[in-house]
């Protein structure tokens, strides 16, 4: 009998080869797993951390009700933009903003009761200042006392920062003392022999702005031949305008707010005509569209300083060319969003400066990666950025040093930005014709 023939076993793969294969497959599995995890992780939304409450009082009634409502609308517009663009990220978590505000009736006496309520009862994490220098002055000590960062958007009097020490108060807008600087600069560059008359409202802001401009003009060896204030309730300025004309003035600067600005322009027609002043630059009133609609032709060639106009050309590219980082919407996006949230209204500069205060705060929180007051305040102190409102940089006191005012001028019924040249959409026309 023959021995059964055992079938020959297939040759076994070498042991080392199988091992390599197994390791390769394992490696591939791990690689795919890691990649999948990475893709999953990267596409996962950042966890929502919560809401940052920003508290403030605002003037919805009283003498600042128009500016206050505009400011509130600006803040709400920026809030909408920030929350609609992912909020801010702190410690790997996303935070949205919410607002907590009360009407202060434009009365400083209400500030002392409202801010403790906002901070203690409502637990606001950050603060915005109220509108106006007087109300901001009253609110500032509370920010230090409660150790909260407070962004100032409507208090521009330099003395708030130069006359006192306010650790946590940060100014976003240009200070009062440079409001009329652009007008003086333009006159000095183009008509240095002009004699200047100043007629201005006797409130803190108007006085500070005009006196600073006069001091600046005199430092440039320009002649100031008339310098007079008037009460904010004045209804007749013909005596002062006649006196300014008789003093030999060529140019008129000053004003205060809308009503008195309009009064000056109307009374120029009868008191200082043939010829009228060659150059007119008035605070606040000139930026209002109603200024042109009320005065029609006599508004032409009148100039006025503004913190911001929709025509400004700040942009991410502009920021890049200036070596600055950009944050937030462009001026056009802000204007468009503001209009869509406010029945097509066009934002005035009060809206822009108030909105910018929230925007800068959001950027500082994100950069600080913290809600800690000291960290955010330190970040605000070292930031130099650009947003739709312009540049932001403060000195050690919290006073704004980088933001530029713009000079606007009505030309053939249209408001043009004439200074500074790099964001202007027109050139300054001279002289004022009176009609």
């Amino acid at each position: 009998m023959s021995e059964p023939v055992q079938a020959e076993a297939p040759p076994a793969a070498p042991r080392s080869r199988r091992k390599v294969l197994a390791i390769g497959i394992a490696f591939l599995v791990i690689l795919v797993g890691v990649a999948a995890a990475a893709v999953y992780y990267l596409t996962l939304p950042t966890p929502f951390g919560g809401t940052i409450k920003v508290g403030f009082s605002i003037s919805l009634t009283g003498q600042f009700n128009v500016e206050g409502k505009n400011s509130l609308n600006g803040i709400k517009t920026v809030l909408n933009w920030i929350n609609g663009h992912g909020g801010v990220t702190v410690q790997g978590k996303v935070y949205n903003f919410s607002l907590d505000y009360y009407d202060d009736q434009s009365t400083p006496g209400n500030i002392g009761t409202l801010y403790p309520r906002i901070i203690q009862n409502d637990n606001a994490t950050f603060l915005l200042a109220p509108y106006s220098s007087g109300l901001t002055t009253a609110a500032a000590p509370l920010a230090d006392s409660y150790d909260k960062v407070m962004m100032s958007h409507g208090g521009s009097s330099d003395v708030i920062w130069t006359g006192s020490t306010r650790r946590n108060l940060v100014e976003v807008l240009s200070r009062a003392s440079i409001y009329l600087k652009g007008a003086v600069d333009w006159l000095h560059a183009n008509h240095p022999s002009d004699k200047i008359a100043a007629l201005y409202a006797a409130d803190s802001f108007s006085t500070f702005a005009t006196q600073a401009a006069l001091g600046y003009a005199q430092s440039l060896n320009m002649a100031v031949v008339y310098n007079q204030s008037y009460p904010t309730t004045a209804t007749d300025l013909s005596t002062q305008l006649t006196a300014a004309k008789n003093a030999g003035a060529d140019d008129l600067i000053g004003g205060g707010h809308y009503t008195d600005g309009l009064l000056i322009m109307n009374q120029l027609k009868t008191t200082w005509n043939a010829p009228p002043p060659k150059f007119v630059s008035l605070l606040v009133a000139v930026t209002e569209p109603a200024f042109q609609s009320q005065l029609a032709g006599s508004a032409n060639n009148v100039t006025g300083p503004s913190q911001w106009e929709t025509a400004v050309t700040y942009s991410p590219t502009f920021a890049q060319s200036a070596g600055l980082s950009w944050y937030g919407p462009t001026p056009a996006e802000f204007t468009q969003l503001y209009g869509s949230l406010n029945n097509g209204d066009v934002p005035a500069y009060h809206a822009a400066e108030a909105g910018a205060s929230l925007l800068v705060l959001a950027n500082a929180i994100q950069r600080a990666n913290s809600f800690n007051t000291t960290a955010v305040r330190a970040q605000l102190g070292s930031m130099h950025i650009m947003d739709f409102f312009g540049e932001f940089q403060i000195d050690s006191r919290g006073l704004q040093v980088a933001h530029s005012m713009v000079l606007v001028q009505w030309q053939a019924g249209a408001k043009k930005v004439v200074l500074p040249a790099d964001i202007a959409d027109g050139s300054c026309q001279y002289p004022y014709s009176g009609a």
Partner: protein
Amino acid sequence: MRRLSLRTLGPTLLGILAFLGVLAAIAGRMPLVLLTLVINLLIFAALAYSINFITGLTGYVSFGHVLFMAVGGYGLAYGVGTLHWHPVAGVALGALVSLALALGIGAVTLRFRGVYFAIASQVTALAGFYIVLEVQELGGGQGIVLNVGFEPIAWFYTIWVILAIEVGITYWITHGRLGYGIRSIRADEDAAKTVGVHAAALKLVLFAISGLFAGAAGGVYYWQGSGIFPNEAFSLTFSLIMLAMIVIGGMGTLLGPLFGAVAVYLSSQYFLTVLIGFEFVIIGVLVVVIALFLPEGIVGTLRKYVPELRGLIE
């Protein structure tokens, strides 16, 4: 003269002192939100008592009382900002300057009566505004910002002391010989003179006291505001609020100014969140209704219609 004892002080004064005593005892433990509310209430009560000295007790309506409040504020600002004094010393300076000013103004304007005095008092307030605009040492139109902090406990005890003294002086005046003379002036000044009341001197003393305390309360108000700005400081609204408080509470009474301050100030806080902007509409209507139908204010009306309260409130 009667000897002072707890029994002779009367329930109204004892009640007010007890109220103030409780506030003083718990001030340090109050939540800050409540404390700031109480401080402002006491400031407005102090202002109401100040105008009560002249308008409430003699019937001379002072529309320009805001002048003394503003001068008190400027005294504080000058003392703290220029002389570098402690704010309490600044409040005292403001009060003393207001006293001196009231003596000077009163010596002239108290010769007028009725509507002429009211107009004269308002004109002096306007003049004060224009003068401040021209005085650079007082900040001119720019105002003065004070480098002071948030000091609610200091504000509280300062205004507490001012108000307690005011209440005490109101009681002393209305319950002493001075009170007889003053009541006779309010009833019929000419008749009072004929029976030997030195009306001019009495009115001047009351006006000076009134100016002193309006200045003191103004000093605390602007200390709390960390600064003073002329447009707000000379606002006629303050005079009208002071008048509204004593009209609503009861002119010339001991308790009326406190009731008026509670009614006007606390309602103004309510209107910060509800019916925004309607505060002065409602207060205005209230003043008109009270002047027409309840001319003696809350205190007078309670005394008139609730006999049981006649001996309790004054």
